[in-house]
């Protein structure tokens, strides 16, 4: 009567396959039809709004950056205001390699950007992730500021405040050229990079590793108590997140053919945090929703009424912090649940 179930026991697996909770877990990673929508929309944007492809590139870069932050903050609960450090590391890697004509092939440049950013992420994570809370937040801000000032100090190489303009980028696959006037190649290239990175993140999130990150976020004390090597997981997560942010930064440099200190600023780090929270953190598509909403609003409002935009954004943040901490997707989920409950009750 008392023997605990042995693993893989046929009866248990059979029982599991009849239980809705177990089925849900087993099927969670399967593709749903609406997951194709963002990519269809991406192609539609290319076909329908050829004048907005510059904006489109900005959008895709922001989505990737927010996605990278989501991995660290949304899934593992690492609260950082310094993620632009990795964005900037990637941007400057690509930028300096291109500007001095050392390496201009776009795909491999991004891989190098990822490697540099991952290295910085690994080293800083190793040291910083010993701390938590406000101390950790401060350390991430200071690390980012440190890199920003280093780039400033090295202005003969980095261009300092003015940056490195007109970066030469070699054609993708040797065929598709980056035209500074028409962002067609840039946009499709960015879309492709985002797609590959997103697939990678999606696999990671549904993997056992991704699930354990959720556990660390939900109750780190419990994770220690079940034997989870928490620190190791956090450092790996932080490094991967840094790599992705580095790719976003490199992509930004490639699509705008420009890199400057703004890649490493607090402004950029705060904006990506806002974008992610707006969409909903800890959800794969929060970055997409947040980036679209934020950039669309900024594009249309900030140019006409910049002060009103700032006021509105401030109010929005206050409201989100008070009432809708899970962003647009979270709000949507809550409303959906209420709708389903009401339907079930009637």
């Amino acid at each position, binding site marked *: 009567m008392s023997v605990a179930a042995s693993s893989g026991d046929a009866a248990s697996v059979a029982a599991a396959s009849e239980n809705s909770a177990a089925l849900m877990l087993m099927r969670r990673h399967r593709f749903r039809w609406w997951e194709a929508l963002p990519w269809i929309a991406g192609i539609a944007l290319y076909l329908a709004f050829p004048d907005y492809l510059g904006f489109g590139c900005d959008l895709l870069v922001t989505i990737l950056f927010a996605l990278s932050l989501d991995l660290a903050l949304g899934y593992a609960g690492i609260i950082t205001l310094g993620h632009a450090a990795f964005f900037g590391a990637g941007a400057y890697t690509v930028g300096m390699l291109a500007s001095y004509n050392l390496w201009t092939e776009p795909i491999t440049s991004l891989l190098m950007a990822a490697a540099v950013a991952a290295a910085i992420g690994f080293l800083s994570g190793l040291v910083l992730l010993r701390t938590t809370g406000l101390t950790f937040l401060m350390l991430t801000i200071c690390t980012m500021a440190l890199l920003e000032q280093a780039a400033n100090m090295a202005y003969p190489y980095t261009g300092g405040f003015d940056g490195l303009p007109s970066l030469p980028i070699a054609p993708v696959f040797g065929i598709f050229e980056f035209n500074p006037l028409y962002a067609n190649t840039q946009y499709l290239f960015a879309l492709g990079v985002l797609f590959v990175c997103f697939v990678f993140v999606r696999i990671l999130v549904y993997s056992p590793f991704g699930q354990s990150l959720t556990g660390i976020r939900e109750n780190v004390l*419990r994770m220690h108590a*079940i034997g989870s090597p928490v620190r190791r997981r956090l450092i790996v997560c932080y490094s991967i997140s840094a790599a992705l942010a580095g790719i976003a930064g490199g992509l930004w440099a490639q699509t705008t053919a420009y890199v400057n200190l703004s890649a490493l600023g607090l402004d950029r780090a705060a904006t990506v945090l806002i974008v992610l929270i707006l969409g909903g953190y800890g959800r794969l598509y929060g970055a997409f929703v947040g980036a679209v909403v934020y950039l669309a609003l900024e594009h249309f409002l900030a140019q006409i009424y910049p002060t009103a935009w700032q006021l509105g954004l401030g109010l929005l943040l206050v409201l989100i912090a008070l009432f809708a901490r899970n962003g647009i997707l979270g709000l949507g989920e809550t409303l959906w649940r209420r709708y389903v409950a009401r339907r079930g009750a009637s």
Partner: protein
Amino acid sequence: MTGIRLETQDLCRSFGALAAVQGIDFKLAAGARHALIGPNGAGKTTFINLLTGVLKPTRGRVLLGGRDITSAAQAERVKFGIARTFQINRLFRGLSVLENVCMAVAERAGMAGSMFYPAGRRTDVIGEAMGLLQMLKLADTARHRVSELPYGRQRLIELAIAIALKPEVLLLDEPAAGVPSAESHIILDAIERLPEHIAVLIIEHDMDVVFRFAKRVTVMVSGAVFVEGTPREIEADPQVREVYLGQAGPAAPRAAHG
């Protein structure tokens, strides 16, 4: 499996001037059903924290199956085979019951760090977790969020997670604490059905539970072992009564019979 599974030698822990745990020599054999009782503030939870690595001792050693684990971190000790439940639940409140137990099973199975295939494909892990839930009669709550369940059920999930780790030594810190008496039998039944080879140490205040469950009892007072014996011996011991007499109410051991 016989033999001493868990042992402490002169285990001490002080917080500044306060000696919370003083010179404890303790042995727990395989298959043991051992209760640890004592007035509030006696140092029982501190002792468990020392055993599991939440606290480091100021002096002394902890040995698990003969291996010195005194300097091992909490997570390492779990891998060596010692698990615990907490006095106040530490669950993943936003996740489902099944997910909670799967988290523990996955860690134990050593695949929780794998990155490149979906967790959902490991039907063996999910199956094992479901089997555990069924054994503890939690299967019908599997898809509910932990925060939606009554406290008694949550306490049971706390136990399920510890069992999922397949420990050799299981430390239960007041497993029925805070559970309404109507529900507490579920937990006690579950404890009774634990695998026989596991060495179990349970902190308790309720002498009913101690009588029902324990073969040996250790009484701890002011951080040191006061006396040790069978439940009957302890209950009849006048010194034990005296130690509890100063504390009225729930801290006093209540006899099962008048």
